């Protein structure tokens, strides 16, 4: 449970050794190289150094990277490769990595092959679309049996024309006649959209005839062919379509044959990423004529490694504790059990480097809260098994997905435990099945209490857990304040409220526990309130002396609403339990006799699946909310920037250093 301690690092080295030094740091993977923007703006620095980096080269490499990405996309889209639900990086030793790196040219060729195939595939698709469009354009003309190349004879002009469907061709013919154009108008076909006709007239009348045709809404058909009858053309396109479909199939099977490229291309992708990063990082460095310099951060624990690595080079380096106004990068280091909960912390914000890492502290609260809200043996075991399966089957071992699965895994156990305590096994499924099909009266007694019957007890337990949770949060705040030397503040902000809250609880409910409870509670409350008013008088000056009164008001309302907020533990617990019971009840209504069993099972499956999904989500977010709003609200500042060590930021493979 801690935030890793960081040291600042400054290095000045020889340009001649730069490449090697960058490679060494990358292999080491523990140094974050900070941006140089601040220094370049400083005039004195700007006089001495200039920014390093070769953006052109980086962008070239990025282009190749995106080509590889595209090739991988082709494999996924057309190669029939299913993307797994979760992915994890393939482990690989350095030796393997180096030997695979030598086949770089092959990978580049594979990328090209796939992209070419994809281009061909796209071209074929375009051709198919065009042919299909032509077939439908020709369709109305199928009965027109004059070859399309005949558009005129010595004297005559032959035109194919489309008109709006309402056109009266006879009237058109008459109009042409009237204007003195002898013509022949033939309707070829007519559908909802258009009227299709062929028109012949003397070449000499062209201008006049066209004018009249235009008045009737004449348009030229969208046929691109100039040879053969429409029927012949359609035939041609149909054979073309068959060929194209076969071609497409062939390309697809060629792509499918290359699915084995996937691993190679993934490796190539990572190889290129590493190489790009080696250049990209130079953008964070600064050069003089013969030397270069950069600043960075590294975890104190890796000091020896960093020293050993830098010793090999002709360079000057110094490291120091971070100063007051440094923004220190943050990385959390929790024990194995608590590590996955960093996912929950990260969802809110990383702590800043000067505060306490809350992860391990809220872990048990999170798990218990989730369990209380999702309390069911059946649901819990399913959640446990499903997440365990996901971890094992997809070989997850790092990253956010892995952490989330582990968190849910814990929560599954906790839900099952609370299920036993509350006597919920898919709600009251066992009782219902017993009654429905075996005529037996099976009742599984809860180990502790039945939330439906003893809801008041559970409400009190929920709020009590809330008080404990809040007290822990205030404890952390007090610890931080005392560490910063503000003992009086710690007492005023936290310990006084311990006394007041406990006092009020004893005063109001203490009688049930011990006879002297209310009296003790009353005095604790009075002492607490008095302290809350008096302490600020010593702490502040002027008007600030009266702040105690305001503190009492905001403290009472704040604490009250925060504590009552934990009633959601009861609320969501009741919701998931009662929905499960309602599902069982509905199933029992339909489930009679032979076919009834099938219906019964169907309703049960559907209902419980729905309830599981809704309440797993609900429990997850509400348990998180209690951490973020109520718990974090007591002490947490957050806003830490994640530590991003310069290293091999790979996507598909992970290089294991030998001997580590």
């Amino acid at each position, binding site marked *: 449970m801690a935030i890793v301690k960081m040291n600042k690092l400054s290095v000045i080295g020889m340009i001649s050794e730069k490449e090697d030094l960058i490679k060494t740091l990358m292999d080491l993977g523990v140094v974050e190289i900070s941006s140089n923007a601040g220094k370049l703006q400083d005039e004195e620095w700007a006089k001495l150094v200039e920014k390093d980096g070769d953006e052109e080269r980086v962008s070239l490499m990025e282009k190749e990277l995106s080509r590889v990405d595209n090739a991988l996309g082709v494999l996924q889209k057309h190669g029939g490769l299913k993307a797994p639900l979760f992915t994890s990086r393939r482990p690989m030793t350095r030796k393997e990595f180096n030997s695979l790196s030598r086949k770089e040219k092959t990978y580049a060729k594979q990328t090209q092959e796939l992209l070419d195939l994809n281009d061909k595939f796209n071209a074929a698709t375009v051709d198919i679309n065009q042919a299909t469009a032509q077939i439908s354009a020709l369709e109305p003309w199928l009965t027109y049996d004059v070859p399309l190349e005949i558009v005129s004879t010595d004297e005559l002009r032959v035109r194919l024309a489309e008109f709006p469907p309402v056109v009266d061709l006879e009237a058109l013919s008459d109009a042409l006649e009237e204007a003195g154009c002898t013509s022949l108008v033939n309707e070829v076909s007519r559908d909802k959209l258009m009227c299709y006709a062929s028109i012949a007239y003397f070449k000499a009348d062209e201008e006049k005839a066209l004018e009249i045709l235009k008045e009737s809404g004449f348009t030229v058909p969208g046929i691109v062919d100039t040879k053969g009858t429409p029927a012949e053309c359609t035939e041609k396109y149909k054979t073309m379509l068959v060929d194209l479909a076969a071609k497409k199939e062939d390309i697809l099977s060629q792509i499918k044959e290359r699915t084995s490229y996937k691993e190679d291309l993934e490796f190539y992708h990572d190889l290129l990423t590493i190489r790009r990063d080696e250049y990209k990082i130079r953008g964070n460095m600064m050069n003089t004529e013969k030397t270069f310099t950069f600043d960075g951060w590294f975890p104190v624990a890796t000091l020896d490694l960093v020293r050993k690595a830098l010793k090999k080079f002709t360079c000057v380096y110094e490291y120091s504790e971070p100063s007051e106004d440094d923004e220190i990068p943050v990385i959390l280091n929790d024990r194995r059990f608590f590590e996955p909960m960093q996912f929950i912390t990260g969802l809110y914000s990383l702590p800043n480097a000067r505060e306490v890492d809350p992860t391990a502290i809220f872990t048990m609260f999170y798990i218990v809260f989730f369990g209380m809200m999702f309390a069911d043996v059946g649901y819990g075991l399913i959640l446990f098994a499903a997440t365990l399966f996901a971890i094992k089957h997809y070989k997850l071992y790092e990253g956010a997905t892995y952490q989330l699965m582990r968190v849910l895994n814990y929560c599954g156990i906790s839900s099952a435990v609370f299920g036993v305590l509350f006597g919920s096994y898919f709600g009251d499924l066992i009782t219902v099945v017993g009654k429905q099909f075996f005529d037996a009266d099976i009742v599984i007694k809860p180990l502790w209490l039945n939330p439906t019957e003893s809801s008041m007890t559970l*409400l009190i337990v929920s709020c009590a857990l809330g008080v404990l949770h809040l007290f822990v949060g205030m404890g952390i705040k007090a610890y931080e304040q005392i560490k910063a030397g503000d003992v009086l503040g710690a007492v005023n902000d936290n310990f006084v409220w311990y006394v007041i809250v406990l006092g009020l609880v004893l005063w109001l409910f203490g009688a049930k526990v011990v006879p002297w409870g209310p009296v003790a509670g009353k005095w604790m409350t009075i002492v607490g309130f008095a302290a809350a008013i008096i302490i600020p008088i010593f702490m502040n000056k002027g008007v600030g002396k009266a702040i105690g009164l305001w503190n009492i008001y905001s403290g009472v309302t704040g604490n009250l609403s925060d504590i009552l907020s934990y009633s959601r533990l009861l609320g969501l617990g009741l919701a998931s339990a009662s929905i499960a019971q309602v599902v069982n009840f509905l199933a029992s209504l339909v489930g009679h006799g032979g076919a009834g069993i099938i219906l019964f099972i169907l309703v049960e499956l559907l209902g419980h699946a729905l309830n599981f999904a809704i309440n797993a989500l609900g429990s997850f977010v509400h348990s*998180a909310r209690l951490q973020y709003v109520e718990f974090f609200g007591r002490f947490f500042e957050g806003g830490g920037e994640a530590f991003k060590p310069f290293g091999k930021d790979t996507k598909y493979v992970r290089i294991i250093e030998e001997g580590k």
Partner: protein
Amino acid sequence: MTIGVALAVFGAAIAACAGVGSGLGVGIAGEAADGVMAGEGTSFGSTLVLQALPGTQGIYGMVIAIMIMTKIGVLGGGAIDLSVAQGLALLGAGLPIGIVGVWSGIAQGKAAAAGIQLVSKKDGKLGQAIIYAVMVETYAILAFIISFLLYNGITV
């Protein structure tokens, strides 16, 4: 059937009306989701989770409704005799979730819709978007608890 039973049925009906809020809320969020899915880079799963959030009010309402119906024997078994007072009390038990559910569902739908906009514009903000929307749900949960405690306290 006595007037008491009729009143209790009325209570169950009001509780079930929490679904109005959920329906509107899920609809509002769904529209926003459609909007952002037109662009690229937003995962279907994240928008779906946000869209589902305002759905809980309707479920709380349904649970209370079915529990009232079971208690008075409208569901499974013959209706029992209820006094007018008992019926009115059960009607009252249906009110909190029925009323709060409608408005909190709509409000949560709006918060979820804004959250969908957020996740479509910035990666890794799903957690925060969910939390914002879930803040609204608190009040539906409180109403549900009160409805439940009232229901639980009424003996028939």
